[in-house]
């Protein structure tokens, strides 16, 4: 994935491998209040591109602009400034929508339709022939394990069933770009594993997938490409941020932690200290034996050494704190 910061300008040309391209995207919502107009800038000059065969996770706190970004790519809303292209075509154009699959956070269906009728309805909207619709419906039933509820009316569906059906309708046209807003909402553990496998299959077949999710653990199992958003801006690529933050080592001690930290280690390396434990920042795992040797020579009685890497959740929290207090 190529991330273009505002000061670097827009990407110069459209690459055949680029599935989604956003250039200097700004979205301002205007709300008419009693006697004045309130404006909310949901996105500020966001530029990015997503390649085919790539899964990108959008992470960030509530109100960060994740859904706004997805909605702009889906063509549901229009940008105040900037432009979005999907498969080389302007978002919202029929050609762009031809290669697009979209699954909203809260999928809604006609209550009187069964899952099968809903799938047939969406197949018809896609312009498929009667035979193709039947084949696609059968494939979707198999792919998303919908046999149990395929002929039940949608009004009786649980959230998980709705999510499966929404995903089935989103991937019916074998999209080149798939946009998912909280796709694992309400899914049971088996459903989550099936979803993960399906998304990996789609990625391997060349589909670009953009996921907005608060389930960071799930996202971590799918991709290492994250966009961390805060207050309408892409703060950083999360994997770069994680690498920048480095790893840390936890050294267990019998006693004397504060004295050892003060006399043997530079203050910038010590992240946390207690009587029986030191948490130290390391830029390279190869440095750990040297640190341990240095501590042992200084008289430390070491009980354990654990090398830990910051996971996506810790990265998220750190970036949130940095974003809130730049």
């Amino acid at each position, binding site marked *: 994935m190529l991330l273009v910061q505002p000061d670097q300008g827009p990407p110069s040309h459209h690459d055949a491998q680029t599935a989604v391209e956003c250039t200097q995207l700004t979205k301002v919502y205007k709300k008419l209040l009693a006697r004045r107009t309130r404006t909310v800038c949901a996105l500020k000059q966001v530029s990015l591109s997503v390649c085919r065969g790539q899964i990108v996770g959008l992470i960030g706190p509530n109100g960060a602009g994740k859904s706004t970004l997805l909605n702009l790519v889906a063509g549901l809303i229009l940008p105040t400034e900037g432009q979005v292209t999907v498969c080389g075509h302007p978002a919202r154009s029929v050609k762009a929508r031809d290669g*697009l699959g979209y699954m909203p956070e809260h999928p*809604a269906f006609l209550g009187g339709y069964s899952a099968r009728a809903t799938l047939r309805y969406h197949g018809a*909207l896609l*312009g498929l022939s009667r035979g193709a*619709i039947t084949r696609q419906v059968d494939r979707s039933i198999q792919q998303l394990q919908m046999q149990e509820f395929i002929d039940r009316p949608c009004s009786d569906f649980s959230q998980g069933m709705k999510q499966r059906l929404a995903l089935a309708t989103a991937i019916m046209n074998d999209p080149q770009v798939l946009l998912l807003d909280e796709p694992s909402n309400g899914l049971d553990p088996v459903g989550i594993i099936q979803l993960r496998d399906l998304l990996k299959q789609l990625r391997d077949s060349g589909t670009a997938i953009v996921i907005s999710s608060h389930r960071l653990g799930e996202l971590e199992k799918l991709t290492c490409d994250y966009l961390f958003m805060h207050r309408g801006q892409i703060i950083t690529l999360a994997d770069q941020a994680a690498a920048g933050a480095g790893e840390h080592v936890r050294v267990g001690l019998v006693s004397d932690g504060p004295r050892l930290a003060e006399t043997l280690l530079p203050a910038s390396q010590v992240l946390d200290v207690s009587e029986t434990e030191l948490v130290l920042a390391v830029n390279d795992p190869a440095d750990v034996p040297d640190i341990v040797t240095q501590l042992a020579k200084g008289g430390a009685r070491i009980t354990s050494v654990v090398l830990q890497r910051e996971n996506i959740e810790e990265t998220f929290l750190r970036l949130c704190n940095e974003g809130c207090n730049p």
Partner: protein
Amino acid sequence: MRAWELMKETFLRRRHIWIVHLTWLVFYGLFWWLFLPDPEEYGGFLFLWGGFLLPLALSAGIMGDDIASGRMCVLVTKPFWLGEVYLYRLLGLSLQAALHFILAGCVILVLHLVTRKGTMAGLGLWFLACWLLFNTYAALSTSLSVVIKGVHNSLLLFLGTLTLSAVAAMVIWNLQDHPMAEVVKGFFRYPFPPFEFLGHLGKGDYAKQTLALGGAGIPKSVACAAHSLILTTIYAGIGVRLLTRRQFSTHRD
């Protein structure tokens, strides 16, 4: 396939739709059975219930429901011109109305044959007038539904029609002998659903003129039908434009 599915859902989208059809048919039958009206009175009743109230009941939330529930967001991402959603839904309503009036005619015919009461004379023209009025109101209501969430489009149109009718009646009454009276009448007659013209068409006034004047009523009938169809097209055009330019989510995460 797409056209059929979009038309079909105008009937299947809510459970109350078939209840409305059934209830209206029962009303038509009861009115015939209980009041034995003359054709003009019965035509007026059909015109009000079938031409005015039926489209409001059938088109309540026809777009607004989907916009409010978020279902429209998925339709917007499908690869076809968004105006098709509007046009096929309007066509679906119009077809429903056509079938509804055919069934209503059958109900009345059966009652007429069973009871040997009343007359069927002139009802065909009333049904045509009802269908034309239905289309204009359906287009107006569907266009309102693009900008008004939920089922409030029909309620607003109902109240708007009552208010406008009252205002029109009051203004025209006060300007009876004023030279501006015709201009004011024109303002109320032409841009709004043509109750007055279609009422004349249903009553057979234009047909009577044809008999009396030797063909002069035919252009009036055609002009009346054309006027209502042009209004339907204009209302639909506005609705399509609103729908294709609309943004479908101001939701912020």
